[in-house]
């Protein structure tokens, strides 16, 4: 098979410590090398003036298939992913049926292979039917292809069940990902509890609900000697708890979603249901704490918590609207603000979107090392565009960034060395 050359871009591959203007060579769908190679390219992609990096790894998405395909399915979610530069994504188990049996996990993986745009790695349920009572067959689920465990959408609320989940999972070195929320404090809430919820007259979700659950879980992770990962961390308190736990040598990790480091609760002041998600947009102090956590390494990864919802589920008033926003297609431009704001260098940012989540999930992804699958994203750091929700590749339109200026845009996405997205269009 012939070689493909991506020429003249600034190649940033944090996994291998590479940051230089050079070529990337691809042969048989694998990375053949980075730099100058003796060979002749049958085909060349000109990446001059652009960034070339490993395809993004999004460790937290909701693809809604099986069960809620009117919101999203694996095909539409994969198109949104590659349009956003994501080549590997981990999908959460709150589908219908749940990803709590090997058969459903295999079905998702097979469907994603048929679609062939983006790698899809299921995160299986911790508990059967996400009820928080009985553990799933974790070894069987991993054999079927699950890469981690979570009851996302709901916390593993019962401390005894969480302890056992952490103990059992860590016996086999499986990762447990917690949607950290003390339901007794948060149930019925729609937005962050505080001045905004008071003015709106809407029930609040206190930051203490997230803090309390993270604090409890850290105690349990210590007790169990387990790896523990906090999904979509959103409060200053939770960030500090994770920071302290890591200082003590615990295997505690965390991810942050772009909306939590880019937006605050002010977005919901006009009862905007497209800015409603769980955990909710918090205060400016929380936003800055999440940014500080990204800056000092407390937060390992950026993950979108892409949560598509049909407009019917959003168009019923703030309190009863579904939680969630789509995020795959805004991941890059929103995250680039961290570089423009001086929080992270571009290689540091890319690490949080590639090699870091790949390592947490044990994926052969997020690297341009020779012999690895040539999953590559090329983007223009400076390109300015306006987000139009009608032009999203996702089946759903629930974005808080509709009509806003974006800076930074994916121009090409390659999976296994094959162009799957180029110049605004999904290929294949």
């Amino acid at each position, binding site marked *: 098979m012939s070689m493909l050359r991506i020429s003249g871009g600034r190649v940033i591959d944090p996994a291998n410590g590479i940051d230089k203007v050079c070529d990337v060579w691809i042969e048989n769908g694998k990375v053949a090398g980075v730099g100058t190679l003796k060979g002749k390219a049958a085909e060349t992609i000109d990446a001059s003036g652009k960034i070339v990096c490993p395809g993004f790894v999004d460790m937290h998405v909701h693809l809604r298939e099986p069960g809620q395909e009117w919101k999203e399915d694996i095909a539409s979610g994969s198109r949104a992913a590659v349009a956003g530069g994501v080549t590997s994504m981990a999908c959460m188990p709150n589908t219908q049926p749940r990803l709590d049996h090997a058969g459903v996990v295999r079905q998702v993986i097979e469907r994603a292979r048929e679609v062939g745009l983006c790698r899809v790695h299921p995160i299986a349920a911790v508990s059967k039917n996400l009820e928080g009572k009985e553990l799933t067959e974790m070894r069987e689920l991993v054999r079927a292809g699950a890469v981690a465990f979570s009851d996302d959408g709901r916390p593993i609320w019962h401390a005894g069940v969480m302890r056992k989940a952490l103990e059992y999972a860590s016996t086999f070195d499986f990762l447990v990902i917690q949607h950290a929320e003390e339901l007794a404090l948060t149930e019925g809430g729609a937005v962050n509890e*505080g001045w905004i919820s*008071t*003015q*709106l*007259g*809407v029930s609040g979700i206190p930051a203490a609900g997230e803090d309390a659950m993270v604090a409890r879980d850290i105690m349990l992770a210590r007790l169990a000697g387990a790896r523990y990962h906090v999904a979509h961390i959103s409060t200053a308190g939770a960030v500090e708890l994770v920071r302290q736990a890591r200082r003590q040598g615990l295997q505690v990790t965390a991810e942050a979603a772009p909306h939590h480091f880019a937006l605050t609760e002010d977005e919901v002041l006009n*009862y905007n249901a497209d800015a409603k998600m769980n955990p909710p947009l918090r205060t400016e102090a929380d936003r800055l704490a999440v940014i500080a956590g990204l800056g000092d390494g407390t937060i390992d990864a950026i993950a979108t918590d892409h949560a598509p919802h049909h407009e019917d589920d959003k*168009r*019923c*008033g703030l309190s009863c609207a579904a939680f969630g926003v789509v995020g795959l297609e805004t991941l890059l431009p929103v995250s680039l603000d961290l570089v423009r704001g001086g929080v992270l260098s571009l290689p540091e940012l890319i690490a949080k979107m590639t090699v870091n989540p790949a390592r947490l999930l044990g994926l052969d992804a997020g690297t341009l090392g020779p012999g690895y699958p040539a999953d590559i994203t090329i983007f223009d750091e400076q390109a300015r565009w306006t987000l139009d929700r009608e032009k999203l590749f996702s089946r759903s339109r629930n974005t808080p960034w509709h009509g806003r200026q974006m800076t930074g845009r994916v121009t090409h996405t390659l999976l296994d060395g094959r162009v799957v997205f180029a110049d605004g269009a999904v290929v294949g």
Partner: protein
Amino acid sequence: MTPLKHLFGIAELDRYQIEYLVNLGDSFIDLSRRPIKKAPTLRGKTVINLFFENSTRTRTSFEIAGKRLSADVINISASTSATKKGETLLDTAQTLAAMQPHALVIRHSLAGACHFLAGYLPSTAIINAGDGAHEHPTQILTDLLTLKHAIGDMDGRVVTIVGDIAHSRVARSHMLAAQRLGYHVRLVAPKTLLPAQVERYGCQVFHDFDAAIPGSDVLYMLRVQTERLTSNCDFPSIREYHEAYGLNRHRLEAAGAGALVMHPGPINRGVEIATDVADSARSRILDQVEHGVAVRMAVLTALCGGGEE
């Protein structure tokens, strides 16, 4: 003054608009005291009262206000409406709007219900008759009319609001009105019944009712939802609540001689207010009810035309 298109809340009104509506309401009081309680102001206008929450006084008040001004008034309550059949709030409102009423008066448990609907109903005036714990503007305009009669200029006066502030749309609307009209609000409640950071409205927060009484011009008692007692652990018993936060004769005497008692109703006798206080000469509770009709006439007139032209 900019003509009003909707009435969502006090938040959208400035001082002049508030005073205009209160004064217009004042001019309507007399109509309800005449032997023939009818004026042609809103003849040919259609007003739909769409109530998704139980309400006797507010709905009746709007109905009487509309009818005395010769509007055609239709009442729809949630128990008889299509929402029981799964029709959404939006579908119900859009369906009614398609019948071309001049105004939709809406009460709903969803905070922001009127903001939400207004985006989809471009040509219908929407009047908020209470949306969740958000706002209840016609109640506050009513109270301001009562206060205009009882006190006069509110600048520098002190309204002490006691009770379940957390779930009270009346308290929120009052705090917004106070910012615009220059009166002071004191809030009195246990922490369990106060919303987060409520002091940012610029009000004073008290946990001790007796400490808040001196200097109060109005003791404004809120209805306690006794069902909150067990389901929310908001307070341990009615007995203890009444002892700590109920308005009794002793507390009324501790207030100045001119201090007034108000309540948005319906009252729980023996809970937030003792019977003798509710029925005392200091109580303006029934004035509030009477003025409610007049203020709602003013709101309907301002929004349905017939007043400005």
